[in-house]
């Protein structure tokens, strides 16, 4: 049985329903990241687990006990808030030790546990300072110290890194993971940042519009997104989503260039109208006229580790990852050739993933192979 179990959980504010019957479970000791765009209900879900938000209907269980009517402090969980939520008038030691003071832990034991928490988080030198005398990263550590000092079995993180600068965010990401490994308590983190989600999670829960879109490991979710929403939301640069149709001969053609064959020998029935998903790294940028989709490179983003070409297609835009040594320049006419083994197909209406767009030895595959060998020579 899951350590945290959520059954048919619903939340409404008046007539507006924000969570639509969620069912999921978190195993003991795993690090779960709930990710989704703003307003998808992820923070509401976390706050309902914490007990800070009333439940409209459904059931939340923690450690085998239904906690719907249990006070937040008695649920055995600790929460780290987005804005740290430190007590401004207390020192770092006072902040970390406050839960123990409320629990009437004897002073000597309290001080001992505060020292231990401070050592884990590298806060020993700051115990006498007040929150306003600390940097953002240090404040975040104090908030984590206040959480770990209670020795909870469940940690809840509500967008804990969103107020930090980019460098500190990467550092704190690693520190939170290390802390999780050390304490091995179940952790649930909410974020809208897909990089945070992908890098921190043992398991991802992708939410949209108050519903769960997909649950799985980061690699599963990335490799086999369950819907066009997940496909577009996870991955940077984002997956290209293009309207496409399977013609009478079973050939897949993009609607914006019906004369070009993208893949053949499909498992999808003829006439299927779909949204085709191609990750930018699954496009090969070949010289113009080599098959695939005709495009003109509009803009090139150099991210250091890779270069991304944003291309103008006859009826839209697509992005593709360029090899570092590629000679492609802005304004160059190219062909974008998808890796047919890695195409994703989604129902055009519901957005749900369709059967594999598997191909085997199709012409397009050969065309792709030829084109790859003729890709742009180094600059």
């Amino acid at each position: 049985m899951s350590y945290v179990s959520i059954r048919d959980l619903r939340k409404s504010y008046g007539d507006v329903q924000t969570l639509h019957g969620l069912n999921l479970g978190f195993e003991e000791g795993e690090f779960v990241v709930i990710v989704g765009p703003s307003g998808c209900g992820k923070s509401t879900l976390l706050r309902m687990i914490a007990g800070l938000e009333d439940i409209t209907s459904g059931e939340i269980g923690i450690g085998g006990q239904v906690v719907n009517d249990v006070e937040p402090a008695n649920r055995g969980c600790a929460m780290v808030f987005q804005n740290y939520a430190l007590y401004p008038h207390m020192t770092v030691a006072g902040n970390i030790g406050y839960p123990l003071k409320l629990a009437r832990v004897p002073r000597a034991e309290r001080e001992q546990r505060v020292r231990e928490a401070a050592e884990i988080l590298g806060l020993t030198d700051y115990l006498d300072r007040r929150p306003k005398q600390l940097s953002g990263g240090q404040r975040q550590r104090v908030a984590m110290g206040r959480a770990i000092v209670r020795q909870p079995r469940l940690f809840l993180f509500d967008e804990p890194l969103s107020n930090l600068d980019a460098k500190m965010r990467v550092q704190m990401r690693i520190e939170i993971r290390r802390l999780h490994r050390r304490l091995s308590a179940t952790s649930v983190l909410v974020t809208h940042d897909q990089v945070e989600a992908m890098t921190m999670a043992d398991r991802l829960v992708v939410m949209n519009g108050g519903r769960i879109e997909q649950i799985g490991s980061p690699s599963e979710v990335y490799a086999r997104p369950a819907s066009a929403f997940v496909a577009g939301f996870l991955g940077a640069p984002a997956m290209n989503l293009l309207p496409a149709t399977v013609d009478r001969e079973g050939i897949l053609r993009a609607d914006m260039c019906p004369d070009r064959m993208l893949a053949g020998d499909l498992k999808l029935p003829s006439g299927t109208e779909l949204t085709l998903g191609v990750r930018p790294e699954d496009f090969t940028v070949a010289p113009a006229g080599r098959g695939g989709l005709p495009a003109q490179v509009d803009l090139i983003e150099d991210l250091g580790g890779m270069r991304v070409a944003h291309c103008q297609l006859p009826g839209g835009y697509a992005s593709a990852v360029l090899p570092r040594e590629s000679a492609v320049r802005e304004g160059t006419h190219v062909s974008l050739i998808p890796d047919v083994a890695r195409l994703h197909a989604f129902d055009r209406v519901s957005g749900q993933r369709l059967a594999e767009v598997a191909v085997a030895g199709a012409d397009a595959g050969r065309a792709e192979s030829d084109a790859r060998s003729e890709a742009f020579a180094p600059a």
Partner: protein
Amino acid sequence: MMTDAATLAPVQPRRRALALSGWDTGVGHALMILVSLVCVFPIYWMIVTSLRPENAIFSTRLWPDAASLDNYAYALRAVPMQRMLVNTFIVSAAVTAVQLLSGILAGYAFARWRFRGSAILFGAVALTWLVPLQVVMIPNYLLVARLGMIDTLGALILPHIASAFAIMLLAQSMRSFPTEVVEAARMDGGNHWQILWQVIVPNLRGTLASLAILIFITTWNEYFWPLLLTRSPENSVVQIGLQMFISSEGTQWGPLMAASTMASLPILLIYLVLQRQVISSFMKSGLR
């Protein structure tokens, strides 16, 4: 030469701007000094008059020729000024304490609890702020009389144990207190009482200090309610004591000014020590 001209050209307008700004500042300061003099002069004149002998009481000289403390000695002999000052201090301190307490408790309830009719109740509390003393004077007097508290200090405190202004100001401050900090305290195991006194109140010290000063000054200066309630000079407050120097046979200006100076001293002292908080409290109070 061209280089010089080009270099000098932009400097001239800047100089003019600076000069204009200096002129503005000078006029502004002059106006502020004038207004300050207008405000300070009555206090100065009260002190100077209190030091004049009776035969020079209406002198228009800015400084007394022969300053004496006779008026102070007389004022202290004529009415129990020391007792009245102590009474006024007790009443003002007690009213300040109980109004803050009731304001904190009610403010927390309005700011943090969701209950049926809270908005209507808050509106009703706010409305009581608009009711003048003259309206509630008679019912309050009858209530105090029935309780047998006429001519007691308790009667001066009782009608003031709660103030709509204090409740509204504190409720507003608590509403703007970060919700996440309160939620963090809930997660840490704090109940309402602990959250209020250990988390919220220590962070509202500025507002509480301002409010305390305002309540203290208002109560110290109160005249009409003590006039209705007190009978004996021993149970009276200093503002009533001042009135004792004004009679149908004439006003004893020298002792009156001496008593007024003594009555004003604690407030002036508060103002000198806590100037910033006093100003901020008057700004927060808005219309008052």
